[in-house]
């Protein structure tokens, strides 16, 4: 049995769905067909012997136009634009050919009857170009006028309409000049630019690519075997089968002792990850090994990848406000263009009436601020896409701009600079009543309540049934410890020496366990510095940024890490003190980026100019960070700074080029020094150049591992 997903764009109602269902159920090799009307998709489970093409032709014969699933909406738009462009191209070729004959005829005194005939032929070929190919310009222009704003398409639509109607009048009346060549050229070149830009823009699209990694269907396991279901129907607790080479459809836990996964879609890292029983598996990641069974822990729309897509969408909504800004620019710019075109037309009436219309058309076409309006959004979207590929998600598109002002980076130590899961390296017991396993069991059960990175060291402890105990009234003090009361009323505390009441020894970094008023155990916990931390710190320094460790941890621990990395440190800071340190820097004029683990540091992150969080597993949405580093690599922080700087460069280049273009082209056009074809070509290239410049950001290389 294999699965195939069809997209049927013209399946609108349940009657259509019923018809398709009947058609498919008539085919023997098809086991089940599940129809999703909202997504307009059909999920089919069929024998290997049946080729997907046969299913396609069966649905086609029922009167629909199915396609093997893909990005259908974009494709349909793309095809529509390509058709318009092709028709404009064919029309343009013919009109140009006739135009050459007409120009030649002007010199060799062509008989008026042939001139009229050739004008009619041009009209014939130009009409489909205007009435079919140029429709997007007209609809967009009319739409903008209706909503009482003027957009970029207004001058273009106006130029095409004026040129075409003047030519039409001249052709019918037999007197006056025709401008068919300008009409078809405007349409063809501007549509061409739009076609290229749409293609580039599609490459920039951040979130659609993310979710397209999710398969549409899955194999659910039950007592009778495996059955194909749509991912929407999977619930927590279901067991599913992930076949070799397939993507995991939902978040869950492995039931297989050895699973090999490619998590690049989430983390941007190409290294394979091995998972064991009970390890977390994420939707969208790729199964590189053999098939395995897993249990579902969350619905498909609550998966980690869906969270990331939502956060990325948030940034795109802000992105939309940037394009609203450019629309606002257009609202001021476009009326000015129209006035300028009118003035040009009127002045040329006095100088040389025969050139008035062509000068006016040229001004209308050449002065469109398309390039100007694309300059910033194109660079931003391209940068966000590239960052996404490197495992960096922006939840706030303004952050990319702010990053360039940052001169100080505060790094949280535990879980950020050092490995997330520390380990217990030594255990000392002080009581005869409790042996080592008993102490570890007590500690582990209490530390379950804590989110602190050190608590994780205890999470892997095996607790034997006779050491099981229950705690009541558990309180967690961030950075200090956890306390809880046993059923016999005795309070158990675990944490720093001060918190548990142990004798303070200078330089002591142990975690103490207190049973009532007695200290019963001491644990040594270490976590190693991440292997790429020093590479990240070095590259930060090359950007002229001062990295500083800002930690709630003890002086000694911080000093050790800081000395290893060769940077300054601020130790023993509570979240409030951290926030104050940042405020103090900001009042001195510094701009601060705070990198934390996103959970304990929420207020601190909120206080920084830019906040970034390293994400190991859950709690993605809880953190209010502007930037999420999804890969386990710290060097992605350096990538972030590099791409932010590159984005600024590209934006400035784009803005400079667009402004220079408009400032030189408009006077030239108004003075009649620019032929209409050059205006259309200039217009088309200026915006395409901006897009191409922005797409350079897509190939920014990540920092190499040292």
């Amino acid at each position, binding site marked *: 049995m294999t699965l195939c997903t069809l997209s049927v764009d013209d399946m609108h109602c349940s009657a259509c769905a019923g018809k398709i269902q009947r058609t498919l159920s008539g085919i023997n090799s098809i086991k089940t067909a599940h129809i999703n009307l909202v997504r307009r998709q059909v999920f089919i489970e069929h024998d290997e012997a049946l080729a997907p093409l046969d299913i396609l032709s069966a649905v086609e014969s029922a009167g629909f136009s199915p396609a093997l699933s893909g990005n259908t909406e974009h494709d349909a738009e*793309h*095809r529509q634009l390509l*058709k318009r462009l*092709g*028709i404009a191209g*064919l029309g343009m070729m013919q009109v140009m050919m006739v135009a050459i004959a007409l120009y030649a005829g002007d010199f060799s005194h062509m008989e008026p009857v042939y001139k009229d*005939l050739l004008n009619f032929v041009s009209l014939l070929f130009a009409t489909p170009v205007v009435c079919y190919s140029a429709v997007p310009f007209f609809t967009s222009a009319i739409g903008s006028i209706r909503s009482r704003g003027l957009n970029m398409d207004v001058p273009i639509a106006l130029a095409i309409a004026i040129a075409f109607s003047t030519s039409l009048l001249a052709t019918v009346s037999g007197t006056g000049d025709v401008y068919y060549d300008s009409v078809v050229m405007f349409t063809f070149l501007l549509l061409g630019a739009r076609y290229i830009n749409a293609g580039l823009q599609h490459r920039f699209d951040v979130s659609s690519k993310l979710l397209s990694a999710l398969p549409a269907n899955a194999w659910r396991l039950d007592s009778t075997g495996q059955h194909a279901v749509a991912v929407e129907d999977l619930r927590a607790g279901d067991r599913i089968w992930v076949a070799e080479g397939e993507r995991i459809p939902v978040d869950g836990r492995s039931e297989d002792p050895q699973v090999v996964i490619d998590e690049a879609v989430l983390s941007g890292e190409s290294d394979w990850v091995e998972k064991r029983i009970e390890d977390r598996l994420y939707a969208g990641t790729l199964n590189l090994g053999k098939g395995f069974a897993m249990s579902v822990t969350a619905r498909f729309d609550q998966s980690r990848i869906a969270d990331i897509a939502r956060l990325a969408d948030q940034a795109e909504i802000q992105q939309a406000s940037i394009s609203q800004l450019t629309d606002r620019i257009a609202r001021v710019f476009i009326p000015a263009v129209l006035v300028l075109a009118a003035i040009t037309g009127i002045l040329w009436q006095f100088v040389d009436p025969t050139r008035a219309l062509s000068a006016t058309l040229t001004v209308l076409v050449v002065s469109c601020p398309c390039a100007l309006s694309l300059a910033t959004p194109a660079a931003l979207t391209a940068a966000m896409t590239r960052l996404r590929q490197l495992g960096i998600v922006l939840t706030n598109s303004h952050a990319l701009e702010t990053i360039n002002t940052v001169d100080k980076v505060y790094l949280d130590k535990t879980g950020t600079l050092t490995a997330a899961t520390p380990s217990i390296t030594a255990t000392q017991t002080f009581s005869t009543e409790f042996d080592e396993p008993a102490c570890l069991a007590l500690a582990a059960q209490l530390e379950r309540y804590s989110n602190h990175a050190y608590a994780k060291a205890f999470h892997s402890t095996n607790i034997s049934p006779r050491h099981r105990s229950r705690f009541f009234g558990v309180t967690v003090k961030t950075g200090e410890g956890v306390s809880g009361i046993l059923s016999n009323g005795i309070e158990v505390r675990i944490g720093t020496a001060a918190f548990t009441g142990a004798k303070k020894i200078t330089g002591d970094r142990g975690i103490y366990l207190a049973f009532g008023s007695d200290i019963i155990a001491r644990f040594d916990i270490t976590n190693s510095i991440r292997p790429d931390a020093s590479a990240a710190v070095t590259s930060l320094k090359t950007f002229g940024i001062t990295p500083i460790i800002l930690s709630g941890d003890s002086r000694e621990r911080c000093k050790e890490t800081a000395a290893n990395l060769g940077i300054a440190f601020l130790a023993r800071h509570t979240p409030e003190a951290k926030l104050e340190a940042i405020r103090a820097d900001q009042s001195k004029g510094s701009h601060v980026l705070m990198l934390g683990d996103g959970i304990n540091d929420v207020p601190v992150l909120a206080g920084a100019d830019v906040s970034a969080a390293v994400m190991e597993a859950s709690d993605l949405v809880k953190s209010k960070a502007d930037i999420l580093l999804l890969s386990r690599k710290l060097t992605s922080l350096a990538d972030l700074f590099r791409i932010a700087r590159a984005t600024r460069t590209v934006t400035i280049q784009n803005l400079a080029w667009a402004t220079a273009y408009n400032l030189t082209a408009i006077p030239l056009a108004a003075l009649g020094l620019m032929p209409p074809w050059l205006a259309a070509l200039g217009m088309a290239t200026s915006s395409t150049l901006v897009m191409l410049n922005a797409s350079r950001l897509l190939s920014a290389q990540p920092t190499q591992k040292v």
Partner: protein
Amino acid sequence: MEILAILIPISIVFIAIAAAIFVWAVNHKQFEQLDKHGFDIFEEDSGEEP
């Protein structure tokens, strides 16, 4: 110059045919995934003789 009366209609017919072929090709997705066949070697063989 009377030949124009024949040549122009012929050119119109040719262009109409060209446009029709182009529109047919776009509608039947002939221009999508132009690099797709380069990846065909990575696909498993269907087992059928060509």
